[in-house]
């Protein structure tokens, strides 16, 4: 009785005094949370609000008076709106403008001559009616008098208004609207193909006794090492207007959906493969034994045991692939031809038409499928975890000649496809002048003779990749440690966790555009980093934050949760524990995070295409720009430089990991 009814006595909840450790930990987390807010939340907010902003000339806000030739007798005041209604000088469409728009005041006075003695008066009818006299900004409701010669230098300025006008305009524009359809179409087809191919590949690797598994696994990971637009270049050489195998397409053009889909399958393949392979590798032998004892056919077992067991992996892989394709910009840029997709629209609106507001609108629209895919994927991932924790007997494939031959054929075809694409690029890079002079030379590697940034761009990329790997790993791992190993402070940690997961849902281009809005604003105290290497590092770290964060969390969760209590009972500061125990124990994961950041910083286009400047041009951007300028062979050569670098980094990473592990992880051996 007493047990169920007793409630807490009145009084205040006991709170522990913060010790130095607690303060330092909160400070650290605060700093990293501030980083995420400044590098992610605020830019996205700036972009979102930008998409609702329109600029236009509001003629009702201006009133004019004109004098006679003596300059003493004045006409009745009349608004510019009334004048325009009489004259039809400015059509309604031209009244919309960007923030930089100017409208000459003389258009409302057809008789205007700058030599005339006639004088003009101008005032605003509201407090917000800006106009320029030369470069001087005026904004007043008092009459200002100008002679004719001055009056010709008067320009009205647009005023800002907030509303859904940009969205209305976007959806009423059939070309822009069709991009949504195109993007979805491309993404769905590529996703289905990639998941099917990757599933077959993963199945062969995990469930057969096929030979050369290691080699196949290595080949399958190669696409990660190159920018997503590289397969586009290879496809142009194969099937383009002067392609080697153009006749195979039987009149179809590779420029358009076909090329984008083939290229997308290439660059998303390893991502899907990793996820599906993980799902297939946790199969339980006992389920198959049970199926066999029930005399289920292999076909039936496949559909009732294998597919349900791997379904979370398949769903997750599908969403990841879908997001990668729909947010990719490089590939449709290179091989999309006239086929418009959302990512291209953003680029065109921003770079081509300087219409930042409309770019923001397209970004917000592109954000929707990406965020949806992200949310579904998170739900699925949660379920996958519970599946993993079950104790099970690992599946042991049995030899089966015919099945192995089939697996070998499937993987062989994929391997030829992947190696083929890269080999074509290598070939393209070495040929003097396709298709007229097929002799080999290194002239395409003389990047300094081309536009696009030259060798400097390559070195910039190396610098970016090293800085991203270095700074990013420290920030990400420290942040994950604070989230995982801090006690109390629940709301703060929840918010932090949310911010850390957010980048996964934000396409690189959207982030880049958001950076323009946020950092290029002169009022922003961080404006000084605009156009520098720092903003590129921040953008890249932020764009790839989530995967690193999850890797770090997984590693940290495997560490005994009682280390921190033990250290504080021994009155040792947490940073000593962190440096002496946590970091050494997590070193494999830390190395994984750093190589992941390095490789992605080398290949990314979308996260940096809006914010690089002439002296921070990058190799991946150079590929894009050289291709744009028609220098396809040098573009292929630069793409191959990225490939060599990443392959080299991967090998170095493997060697370094092994050495460090041998030296510092002796404790793992029994």
């Amino acid at each position, binding site marked *: 009785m007493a047990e169920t009814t007793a409630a807490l*006595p009145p009084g205040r909840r006991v709170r522990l005094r913060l010790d130095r450790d607690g303060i330092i930990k909160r400070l650290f987390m605060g700093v990293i949370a501030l980083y995420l807010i400044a590098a992610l939340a605020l830019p996205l907010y700036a972009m979102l609000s930008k998409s609702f902003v329109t600029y236009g000339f509001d003629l009702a806000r201006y009133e004019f008076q004109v004098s006679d030739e003596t300059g003493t007798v004045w006409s009745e005041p009349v608004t510019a709106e009334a004048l325009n209604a009489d004259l039809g000088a400015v059509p309604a469409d031209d009244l919309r403008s960007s923030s930089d728009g100017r409208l000459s005041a003389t258009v409302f006075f057809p008789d205007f001559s700058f030599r005339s003695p006639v004088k003009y008066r101008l005032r605003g009818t509201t407090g917000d009616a800006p106009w320029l006299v030369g470069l001087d900004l005026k904004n007043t409701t008092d009459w200002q008098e100008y002679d004719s010669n001055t009056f010709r230098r008067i320009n009205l300025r647009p005023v800002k208004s907030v509303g859904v006008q940009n969205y209305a305009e976007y959806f009423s524009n059939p070309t822009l609207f069709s991009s949504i359809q195109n993007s979805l179409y491309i993404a769905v087809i590529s996703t289905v193909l990639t998941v099917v191919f990757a599933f077959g590949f993963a199945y062969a690797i995990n469930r057969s006794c096929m030979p050369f598994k290691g080699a196949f696994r290595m080949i399958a990971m190669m696409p990660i090492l190159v920018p997503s637009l590289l397969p586009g270049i290879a496809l142009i050489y194969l099937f383009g207007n002067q392609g080697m195998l153009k006749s195979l397409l039987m009149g179809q053009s590779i420029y358009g959906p076909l090329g984008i889909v083939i290229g997308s399958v290439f660059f998303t393949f390893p991502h899907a493969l990793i996820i599906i392979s993980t799902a297939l590798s946790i199969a339980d032998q006992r389920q198959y034994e049970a199926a066999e004892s029930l005399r289920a056919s292999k076909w039936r077992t496949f559909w009732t045991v294998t597919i349900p067991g791997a379904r979370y992996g398949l769903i997750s892989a599908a969403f990841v692939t879908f997001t990668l394709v729909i947010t990719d910009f490089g590939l449709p840029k290179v091989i999309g031809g006239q086929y418009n997709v959302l990512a291209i629209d953003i680029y065109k609106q921003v770079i081509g038409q300087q219409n930042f507001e409309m770019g923001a609108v397209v970004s917000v629209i592109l954000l929707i499928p990406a965020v949806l895919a992200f949310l579904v994927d998170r739900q699925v991932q949660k379920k996958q975890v519970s599946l993993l924790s079950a104790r099970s007997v690992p599946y042991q494939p049995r030899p089966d000649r015919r099945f192995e031959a089939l697996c070998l054929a499937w993987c062989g075809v994929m391997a030829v496809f992947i190696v083929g694409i890269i080999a074509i690029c290598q070939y393209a890079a070495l040929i003097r002048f396709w298709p007229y002079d097929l002799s080999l030379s290194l002239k395409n590697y003389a990047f300094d003779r081309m536009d696009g940034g030259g060798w400097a761009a390559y070195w910039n990329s190396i610098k970016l990749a090293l800085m991203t790997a270095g700074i990013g790993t420290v920030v990400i791992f420290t942040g994950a440690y604070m989230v995982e190993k801090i006690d109390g402070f629940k709301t703060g940690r929840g918010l932090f966790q949310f911010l850390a997961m957010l980048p996964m849902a934000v396409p690189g281009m959207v982030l880049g555009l958001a950076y323009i809005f946020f950092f290029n604003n002169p009022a922003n105290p961080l404006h000084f980093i605009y156009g520098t290497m720092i903003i590129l590092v921040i953008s890249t770290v932020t764009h790839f934050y989530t995967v690193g964060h999850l890797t770090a969390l997984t590693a940290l969760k495997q560490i005994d949760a009682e280390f921190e209590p033990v250290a504080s009972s021994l009155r040792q500061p947490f940073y000593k524990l962190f440096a002496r125990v946590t970091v050494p124990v997590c070193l494999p994961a830390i190395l994984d995070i750093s190589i992941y950041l390095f490789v992605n910083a080398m290949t990314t286009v979308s996260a940096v295409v809006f914010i690089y400047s002439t002296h921070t041009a990058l190799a991946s951007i150079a590929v894009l720009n050289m291709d744009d300028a028609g220098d396809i062979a040098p573009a292929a050569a630069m793409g191959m430089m990225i490939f060599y670098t990443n392959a080299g980094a991967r090998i170095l990473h493997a060697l370094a990991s092994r050495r460090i592990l041998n030296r510092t992880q002796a404790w793992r051996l029994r």
Partner: protein
Amino acid sequence: MVAMTRRGALQASAGNFVADGSAPPYLEIADLWKSFGDFVALREVTLDIARGEFVCFLGPSGCGKTTLLRAIAGLDPQTRGTIRQGGEDISGLPPSQRDFGIVFQSYALFPNLTVRRNIAFGLENTGRSKREIDARVTELLDLVGLPEQASKYPAQLSGGQQQRVALARAIAIDPGLLLLDEPLSALDAKVRVHLRHQIKELQRKLGVTTIMVTHDQEEALSMADRIVVINRGRIEQVGTPTEIYREPASLFVADFIGETNKVASTYRAGAVTLGDAVIATSETRVVDGAAVTVAVRPEDILPHRAEDAGNGAANMLPVTIEDMEFLGSYWRTHLRSDALGATPLVANFSMNAVRRLDLKPGAAMAVELPAERVLVFARGA
């Protein structure tokens, strides 16, 4: 009703304790509460622990004993109430400013540091020279009996050895209070018994005030100076192992510690009726006419010849032997009695008694339930 008895017992044993030591208590826990959302994990916990005492928190899993330990350490602070250690109020202090060493069930040894570095971890940055630290670590390794293992990594040690390293690391800084959170439960039975002894020895040698959390009553009975029995977030009883075992303050304690036969009955004028037998009891805490549960431990049941029953012999019950299990040092005997109906009575009889009385399954005999060993608890709580 039961709550009252319980509190009575609690005060009684606390009184005993204060009489033992004239010094003020080292650890004073006053009216401690802990809630996790709506769930109240600890209720009005009040407890004093003397300097140098070895106290066990004993209870079923989920009873709140680990929660209480973590509150004392400051790892999961209590919601209400105060804790004083050595006269100082530590209720609001973070763990790093309290004075304790702790050993967890997982040992939480740093896997990438050698045994020596593990033990030295808390000695660094304390103004000791490297030589002093080395000497101290060597001394500690000798103390826990692992002088040869200094340069090994934890993964290379057995569970029992890891446990001792964790212990050495915890006592390296000479803490005022040693907290042991189920330190033996990850070990196999043989090692556990051995280590029990070693830990107790070590504690006595160092004289460090020690609190150990355990759900293993044997562990608690064999190691503790005093046992704190906790159930559903409340202290059921505090007392020495013999007190807890011989004079359980509640049916829960009687049932949880050791084994006990339980029979429903009614209390009247210093006796309970079992069937038609009237059994006298020396229990006095129950009011006349109360519905009660009678509890008798198997080893308190004394064997007699069948003819000893009847003739008005006090506290005797005629029974039939249903089944006997040989458990080495004694026979565990299942008895059936008309007085008890369907409820069997379990008694432990010595080999001698069995031989002397020629007990075998199916035989009739009599048992005596000594009045001072017949425990009576009010029902309905």
